[in-house]
């Protein structure tokens, strides 16, 4: 019984692949996914999706490219895609990261967007490998109702497909969705599907052709605050006198269900769990160790509600906005701190220097819509170049700070839609002659010298006209 089915399948597949191979890359036609498991974590406002794909090369030619596809709405909210492959046998397994690049394919059905995973070793015919894919989605949970009162909890929608969207045939697949609490208002049934506790299971589904899609909608309670930084400008200023000054300007917004009507302080203070459950009370920023001179302020002055905890490995800054943030409320603030330079600035063998610093936002569990990192190099430094692990927009600026004559070169990097997973290191290389360090002290000294000379001269010269 099984053989004819497979034969039919194979036949259909060959026909199908012939049809597509006219315009598609060759990797599409002979790969198939024998087993796929997807776990969607909805517990915070950043949706984490773990996808385990067992890819099989059913074709004859070896291939090293595997395609992932996303519906266009998801692709817009996609913050990061990572792919890992397990290496080694049994207990000595290690995870190896694979290259993932966005790919454009002509006439993709319904404008689906693609990412290509480049395998380290080409997948030979008949072989199979397991790829772990992790991708994060931002702004994918839609509050409904869109406006809630203080005492109501926040309900959101999540839309996806019960079937994994893939350009390949998937033999067997299952999706597990984890909700933050057991309170699920409604969810779409695509049999077999069931819910147990905080988990909703879709599948297993067998044998779905490429681009199968079955929309699902889950309406559930999510009271985690939707902390979104609309814009973040990080300025890292290097001083070769031993300090690295970081200034971060935030525009924070609670992107959850909008607050409606009354804000009652009595209720908020006396019954904090029932009232304003989804409000944003505080944020945690993880700063590098040995941080000093931390400040937290906004346009109208210092904000006194912050706590700094430091130990040898990390520093944690707990900041409270001036007021609790309800849905739709905004707050802008600035965090600044100093760091010892030797932890972040190094020299290369060819006498260049480079700064090694984290790129993303230090706040935990926040989405950054737009991030601008500015690295202010000391005056007199030349040939700046930045190395960032993901694509960013770059350009140069000039900034004038204390006692600058020619101005400092600023390397500006911009990126949109960031999640904490982007907190990887980047490097800025430049050349700098230490003699420039003395320019400003010498300038000051000569200014004072001239002032005293002028004083002495004034005291010794008689300027009166009358004699």
């Amino acid at each position, binding site marked *: 019984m099984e053989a004819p089915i497979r034969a039919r399948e194979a036949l259909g597949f060959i026909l199908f692949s012939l049809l597509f191979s006219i315009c598609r890359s060759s990797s599409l036609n002979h790969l198939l996914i024998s087993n796929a498991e997807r776990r969607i974590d909805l517990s915070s406002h950043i949706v984490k999706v773990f996808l385990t794909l067992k890819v099989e090369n059913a074709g004859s030619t070896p291939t090293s490219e595997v395609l992932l596809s996303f*519906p266009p*709405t998801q692709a817009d909210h996609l913050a990061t895609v990572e792919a890992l492959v397990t290496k080694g046998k049994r207990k000595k397994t290690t995870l190896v990261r694979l290259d993932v690049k966005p790919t454009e394919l002509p006439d993709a059905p*319904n404008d689906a967007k693609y990412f290509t995973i480049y395998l380290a070793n080409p997948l030979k015919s008949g072989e199979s490998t397991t790829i772990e894919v992790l991708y994060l989605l931002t702004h994918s949970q*839609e509050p*409904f*109702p*869109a*406006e809630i009162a203080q005492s109501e909890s926040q309900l959101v*929608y999540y*839309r*996806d*497909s019960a079937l994994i969207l893939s350009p390949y045939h998937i033999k067997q697949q299952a999706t597990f969705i984890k909700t933050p609490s057991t309170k*699920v*208002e*409604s*969810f*779409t*049934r*695509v*049999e077999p599907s069931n819910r147990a506790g905080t988990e909703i299971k879709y599948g297993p589904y067998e044998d779905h052709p490429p681009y199968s*899609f*079955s*929309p*699902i*909608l889950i*309406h559930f309670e999510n009271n985690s605050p939707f902390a979104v930084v609309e814009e973040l400008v990080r300025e890292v200023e290097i001083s070769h006198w031993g300090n690295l000054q970081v200034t971060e300007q935030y525009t924070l917004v609670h992107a959850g269900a909008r607050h*409606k*009507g*009354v*804000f*009652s*302080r*009595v209720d908020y203070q*006396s019954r904090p769990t029932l009232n304003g459950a989804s409000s944003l009370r505080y944020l945690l920023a993880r700063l590098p160790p040995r941080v000093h001179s931390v400040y937290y302020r*906004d*346009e*109208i*002055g*210092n*904000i*006194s*509600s912050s706590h700094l905890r430091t130990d040898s490995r990390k520093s944690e800054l707990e900041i409270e906005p*001036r*007021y609790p943030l309800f849905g*739709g*409320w*905004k*707050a*802008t603030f600035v965090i600044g701190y100093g760091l010892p330079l030797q932890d972040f600035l190094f020299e290369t063998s060819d006498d260049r220097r480079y700064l090694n610093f984290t790129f993303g936002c230090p706040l935990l569990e926040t989405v950054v819509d737009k991030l601008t990192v500015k690295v202010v190099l000391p005056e007199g430094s030349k040939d700046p170049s930045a190395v960032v692990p993901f694509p960013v927009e770059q350009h140069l600026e000039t900034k*004038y*700070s*204390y*006692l*600058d*004559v020619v101005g400092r070169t600023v390397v500006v990097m911009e990126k949109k839609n960031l999640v904490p997973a982007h907190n990887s290191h980047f490097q800025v290389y430049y050349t700098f002659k230490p003699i420039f360090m003395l320019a400003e002290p010498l300038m000051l000294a000569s200014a004072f010298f001239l002032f005293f000379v002028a004083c002495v001269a004034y005291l010794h010269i008689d300027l009166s006209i009358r004699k």
Partner: protein
Amino acid sequence: MATMPASASDLLKSFKLKTKQQELLIRVSILCLVYILAFITRLFSVLRYESMIHEFDPYFNYRTTLYLTENGFYDFWNWFDYESWYPLGRIVGGTLYPGLMVTAVLIYRILRFLRFAVHIREVCVLTAPFFASNTTLVAYFFGKEIWDSGAGLVAAILIAICPGYISRSVAGSYDNEGVAIFALLFTFYVFVKAVNTGSLAWSLASAFGYFYMVSAWGGYVFIINLIPLYVLVLLITGRYSMRLYVAYNCMYILGMLLAMQIRFVGFQHVQSGEHMAVMGVFFLMQVFYFLDWVKHMLSDTKLFQAFLRITVTCAVAVGGIALGLGMVSGYISPWTGRFYSLLDPTYAKDHIPIIASVSEHQPTAWSSFMFDFHILLFLFPAGLYFCFKRLSDATIFIVMYGLTSMYFAGVMVRLILVATPAVCLISAIAVSATVKNLTVLLRSKNKVVQTGSTKGSGGSKSSSKALLDQSQPFQKNGAIALLFGAFYLLSRYATHCTWVTSEAYSSPSIVLAARGAHGNRVIFDDYREAYFWLRQNTPQDAKVMSWWDYGYQITAMGNRTVIVDNNTWNNTHIATVGRAMSSYEDEAIEIIRSLDVDYVLVVFGGVTGYSSDDINKFLWMVRIGGGVFPVIKEPDYLVNGEYRVDKGAAPKMLNCLMYKLCYYRFGEMLTEYGKPPGYDRARGVEIGNKDVKLEHLEEAFTTSNWIVRIYRVKPPNNRCPHNVETPVVTHLGDVFPNGSNIHGQSGTCNPQNLGVCLDLLGLVDVNLGNAPTKPCCSLIEGLVDLEGAVCLCTAVRANVLGIHINLSISLSLLLRNCERKVATEYICGP
């Protein structure tokens, strides 16, 4: 102890300095130290709190300075501010003294030019201390001019730390007075110098000093009245001289022309009653000059006497007639209320409640004299004595300045500031002269002891010499004791000043600090919390109504339009706000709507025990409101003349808008252990009306310590008569997000309309397939299959029509009826 000065003098000798150079070195280094001291003693507030602008008026100055830096001088000069005095607006450029802002921006530009990357706020915060330092230099030179350099040094030290001056010039107190006192003292100094020398250059300088003062502060009226008074006294005492003539005329003419360039002052110098004295004296000077010339030409004294009588009578008569004509024709405006209240301390209380309501316009209590002057209060008469002993043009000036300003300081608390330089200078004369006399006494004793034999050859009588010798030990000891006493007093003065500065004058009054239960410092940052909330979470064009005290802060920190602010130029407008606050809610809402108000802000200290809140200011609102609108009567809010908020309070008080806004839901609040809920800690009573209901306003925000409470004005109720119930479903008309828009459809979910479908659902159970499905289907036509189901589901749960439907019915049945593809089965949640 003795080796220290010896080694110091050795050190000086090793530099081979002459005595005169030594003195110069000491003087310059003392002055430098005083300069620095004056600056750093004003930094307590920065160290205690932060580098921020203080209080109320400075926030307006800061806001205008920001505007000036961003838009340039031309725009600043022509600035019409829409954000204050809604809906009237305010011509800012024409109604302020721009000196302070221009100064700060100038300093800022210079620093920027020198590549000091400072923020304008830092410049604003440190402007007042910087000018205070400069004032010490002026005080030194002034002291030197009227007495000697020793008195100058003492004056510099005294004024550097005098609390009367520090109160208005700590870091962050970015107010006109900060630079104005410098300008005032500088003008006086240069004028006295001009009178002493008769130099045109100095009087030119004094004209420019006067111009700066006019541009900086309304207190220039004091200069323009004191100087003619001084000149008049000199004329009466027969001290008329060519020097005086040159100094006064040049200063007056040029100063007046320059002052006219300030838009806010304009033609007041020739039109206002307050400026007439200076003009009168100017003409009198010309008469004197003319008489002098006539006297010079005429040799006959008798003839001259007759001529003098006629001329003086004519001059006075002409002057009087001119003044009278000017007054009658309205060309010369009468004195303003503020000026009257200076001359008659009770005037404001009876006629202008808005002036009387400001605490710094109250008559000064003795304690605050003591607080602000300390020993200077006792040294002041002593200094006057010394001045009278050595009368000159300069000492007459300082005596007149001291006496007049002391009078004004007694009338208004804030004018202590004007008196401070005079008090410091006169006291410095006393200290300097006393110490000098004592040291001279001590030194001469030493000389007598050392060179007793040689002194015998002097011309003094032996008897007197014996007497002197007899009293020597007593005198010497007495001198030493007195010196020590003087130093003790001065050191007490220094400690007092530092203590006062750190305890009383360094609080920004935006951030409130208190001691917690364990002695730790608790900070109440509620003002900024509220203002920042306004700034971030209200519409850009929202109008905020509050009592005028907070107007400047709301516009500067909250960046929102206010109805009234601290520039109290329109009494009616303020009275309207006062009336709204003291009316019942349904009356107040009329006023609030007519003013187009979106938010109402009140300050309430009942939770924290903060006493300068709106409830305590409320009687002023009633008085000011009642002054314009007789509907508001003060006795309605009092019980037997007593102001209460507890159960015994007047019914009008318990139900007026201010009471309701302050105490809304306060009755549920436990403020203090062992006290009933609703215990007001600021007034120490349990409030009388715990069940406050608001009809037209709703609570929008309350800060964490309840100090600021903001209420939103609800939109008027819908006039449609049969719309009694507001629908339960709130997301009417929500556009369905077309998320997984694979099917390329979208539509609008309006659960209220889906009642038809609900009816259907009820039917489906009974009679499947036969129900008239058309109307329902057309409603969900635009929706994707799934979303149609969700929409229905929401409608069912919200239970729009109150029908109880068995939710186990699968909606797919209905959807199938609407010829929808139902690939999935949708289950409504419980």
